């Protein structure tokens, strides 16, 4: 009897898995250093799971390892979207440890940070080619979006046919220029927000559900 019950439960679980929702999609949060990627990842994770993803900082390359927050369930319009958020290190083509010395860092710490940063960027590129199902591209809307790194990364994302949303972050700052971001990448939808202040998050979650659900 016990064996029969176990077998029945086992089959039931297997059937449940077969017909359950698909695996959550892995959504990579990409962008240049200091765009606010981790602030956004933390905002999303806190809003829907109560936990943070990682520490935020104004010093570039604070995030030096891709960090994943699994099974973030976002509810929109009566529908639940399940995603894994992957917060990635800011992508760049150069890292000079001397830049960190300006942030009151000893040389040894700056060199270590730069080494970790380079490893993190390489890792982020690898994730982009192999392991994400969609991309949120975060830009600091106070900065010029027409940079080579942005152009290249959007080109790489497009070449992989990944769904992408552009987030024009830091709209709480006076210099914010969302239209400039939208003009830079007219082929993609641009969503303004302040991840720090939590401004316009309703639209952010609506678009995430629409694009990645």
């Amino acid at each position, binding site marked *: 009897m016990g064996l029969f019950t176990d077998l029945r439960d086992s089959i039931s679980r297997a059937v449940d898995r077969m017909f359950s929702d698909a695996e959550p999609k892995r959504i990579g949060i990409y962008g240049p250093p200091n765009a606010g990627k981790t602030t956004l990842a933390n905002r999303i994770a806190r809003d829907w799971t109560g936990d943070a993803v990682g520490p935020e900082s104004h010093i570039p390359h604070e995030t030096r390892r891709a960090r994943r927050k699994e099974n973030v369930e976002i509810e929109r319009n009566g529908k639940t979207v399940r995603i894994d958020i992957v917060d990635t290190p800011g992508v760049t*083509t150069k890292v*000079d440890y001397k830049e960190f010395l300006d942030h009151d860092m000893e040389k040894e710490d700056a060199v270590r940070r730069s080494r970790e940063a380079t490893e993190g960027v390489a890792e982020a*590129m690898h994730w982009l080619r192999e392991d994400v199902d969609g991309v949120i591209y975060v830009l600091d809307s106070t900065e010029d979006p027409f940079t*080579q790194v942005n*152009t290249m990364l959007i080109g790489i994302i497009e070449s992989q046919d990944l769904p992408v949303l552009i987030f024009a972050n830091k709209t709480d700052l006076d210099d914010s220029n969302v239209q400039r971001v939208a003009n830079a990448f007219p082929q993609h939808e641009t969503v303004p927000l302040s991840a720090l202040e939590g401004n316009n998050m309703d639209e952010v979650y609506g678009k995430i559900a629409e694009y990645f659900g």
Partner: protein
Amino acid sequence: MPEVTPGDGGDGRGGTGNGVQIDLISGARMEGLTGMEKIRLILDGVREGNIVVLEEGLSPDEESKLIEVTMTEISPDEFNGIEIETYPQSGSSNQGFIGRLIGKESAKKLTVIGPANQIETLHKDENLISALVSRK
């Protein structure tokens, strides 16, 4: 006429004594190379202090790998990475999936790559890249 050879500067770096070596690499030269061979060709030149100009640029996948390999080679006080510039691709999206499918998206865009500490972009638009190159 005196013959100028790479490394005439005698300091182990590319270029002549007072100048900076510029390698203009044709599309035909790159065509027969694998992705990794292209990246090696570029990075070997850049690490010697040369400015590399590609007639036809790299594909997005090759650009991705170039960033990744560059990161693995950065070394404090030796190599800080690269500066890379291409014309912004205003029409890239218009080609879309079909364009990529039939291979039209090949990145036929002039591309300039140099050591991060020697090249600085002064201006860039869809028709012009203006860069300042210094000899460090």
